[in-house]
């Protein structure tokens, strides 16, 4: 009586074979480490802090002291505003134009500004604005200069600027809708980390797609099916291979970028779910494509929509309904919250549940279509 291999032994044998084939593919063996290093470098060169202070350049410099006095006195109103004085108007203009980007706005007042204010002659004020400052901000600056004029006038006269206005100033109370992130803004580096993780996961989907399409194109899948290996073993092995490839890459990335300093268990669960989604995409792309170019084409068609929620992290505001309906939205949101803001299970749980449902749907579709394709060879 011959021994028939167990399902597990057969699946493991196919997975090991796939990993060996992957390691022999020159394209992926070059592309994988390069893309991983590239992602880590991108992460590391991005700023790890957020400056919540706006720096305003002022000429002449003695007026900067008046501004600073004003800021110190009205801490609540002018929080986050820093004043730097310049001895020369040209220096101020150069700082705005050629500086490191720290000073985007400069105000040059005439030397007799306070006198002209007090006399009511209304001398002209130059406002230097960097080209990167949007139009709305420029309008706000005009209003700001008027406010400053009032304030300087008051300070110069030794009075409280707020009580010298001709009208009673309404009491302003800012109400933050949503979470007030003032003082704990997420640095760009941490905001981009989920994007890079999702990108790594989806790139590995292409590697799996290549392995699947080669099995179909060379009909090696047929050779497997006339052995004791079943179609289910083949499909399971492909899913496991894709998950291993995607998990390994994203694990290495997060290890190098400190991703596991957050709640490592949630991060691991999210990587696993992402790798499952990556496997589904890889199997679907591999099933659809007839050769390398075809696989790449279909892979891109799947990957671009899945990247959209990740890219939307970079823009403020709540994503549109369409974006929220995409399969990778829950995963992206959870990764963004956990890896960017250090949130925990309470925040991640609903997103994890959504992602599990999407994974089941995508993997189910991938298994169904790949089974049909393999059995019809």
């Amino acid at each position, binding site marked *: 009586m011959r021994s028939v*291999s167990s399902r597990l032994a057969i699946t493991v044998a196919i997975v090991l074979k796939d990993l060996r084939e992957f390691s022999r593919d020159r394209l992926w063996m070059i592309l994988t480490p390069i893309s991983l290093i590239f992602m880590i470098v991108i992460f590391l060169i991005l700023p790890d802090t957020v400056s919540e202070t706006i720096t305003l350049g002022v000429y002449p410099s003695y007026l900067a002291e008046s501004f600073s006095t004003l800021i110190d006195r009205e801490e609540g109103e002018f929080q986050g505003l820093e004043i730097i004085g310049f001895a020369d108007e040209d220096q101020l203009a150069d700082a705005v134009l050629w500086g490191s980007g720290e000073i985007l706005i400069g105000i040059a007042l005439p030397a007799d500004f306070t006198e002209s204010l007090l006399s009511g002659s209304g001398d002209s004020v130059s406002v230097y604005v960097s080209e990167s400052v949007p139009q709305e901000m420029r309008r706000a600056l005009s209003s700001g200069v008027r406010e400053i004029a009032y304030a300087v006038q008051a300070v110069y006269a030794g009075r409280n600027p707020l009580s010298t206005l001709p009208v009673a100033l309404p009491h302003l109370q800012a109400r933050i809708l949503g979470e007030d992130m003032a003082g704990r803004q997420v640095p760009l580096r941490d905001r981009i980390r989920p994007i890079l993780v999702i990108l790594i996961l989806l790139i590995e989907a292409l590697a799996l797609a290549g392995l699947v399409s080669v099995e179909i194109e060379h009909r090696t899948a047929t*050779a497997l099916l006339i052995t*004791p290996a079943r179609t289910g073993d083949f499909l399971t092995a492909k899913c496991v291979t894709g998950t291993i490839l995607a998990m390994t890459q994203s694990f290495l990335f997060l290890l190098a970028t400190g991703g596991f300093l957050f709640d490592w268990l949630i991060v691991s669960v999210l990587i696993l779910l992402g790798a499952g989604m990556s496997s589904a995409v890889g199997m679907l792309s591999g099933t659809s494509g007839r050769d390398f170019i075809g696989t790449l084409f279909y892979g891109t068609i799947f990957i671009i929509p899945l990247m959209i929620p990740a890219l939307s992290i970079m823009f403020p505001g709540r994503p549109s309904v369409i974006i929220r309906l995409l399969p990778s939205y829950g995963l992206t949101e959870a990764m963004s919250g956990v890896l960017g803001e250090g949130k925990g299970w309470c925040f991640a749980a609903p997103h994890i549940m959504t992602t599990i449902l999407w994974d089941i749907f995508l993997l189910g579709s991938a298994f169904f279509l790949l089974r049909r394709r393999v059995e019809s060879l």
Partner: protein
Amino acid sequence: MNPSLLATNLSYSYGNLEAVRGISFHLNPGEILGFLGPNGAGKSTTIKMITGLLTPDTGSIHLLGMEMSLDNPEVQARIGVCFEEKNLYLNMTGRENLKFFSRLFGLKNFDADDLLKKVDLANRADDRVSKYSKGMRQRLMMARAIINRPDVLFLDEPTNGLDPVSSRTLRNMIREQAERGAAVLLTTHDMWEADELSDRVAFLNEGKLYVVDTPDNLKMKYGKRSVKVRLGSDSHVREETIELAAADAGDRIKELINSDNVMTIHTEEATLEDIFIEITGRGLDV
């Protein structure tokens, strides 16, 4: 003796095209059955049905006493298949290919080198298959097909397009498999190979099975036996064919032998191709 393979009334259609039309045959242990037919005759479709890769539209297949299906690992563990297309893992070495398949069959202490030696690939065992020639790949395919010492071996055009040395190596291996008791189903359109290897041959054309018999019986039944005599006198050489069935054949042969002009005498028998054409009305040309 229970047949290793019993196929009854098999039919299969690709859409409107009837590839196989109600064929029945059996294959005994230790026997080589040659499936002869031109391209498109239905040979590969028949093998795919028997190995479980296609489900027949009608009919039944019993392999080693068990009903065949793709979900019967016990049957799959006892068959070997050598496909016409070289579906090997090109990025893996010859040894790795064999070891991988040995794991699928659950073979313990499998010696890949021994098998590679049998197919003259021992010195290329560690080369990737992508660097193998067509003949080397086909020999590796054959090695893979017999990795599990199958009880039933299916060979689909195993020597198609090979050089004479590779062809002879494979033919010897096929005989060895039959000698150890494996039932061998060999599809080919090479009538010479079928004649040399097969215990019985089956003529398949346009999905229909015309006849299944031993090559000798077919030649006796359908062939015309004759003797070809080459005669030479001075600078003139001529040939004369004498049908042995003719009433005066004996006298004519004696007459020629007694003359001084006989250069050579050859017995002529019908080839399988002649008989195939006679029975099916179509040649074996690809």
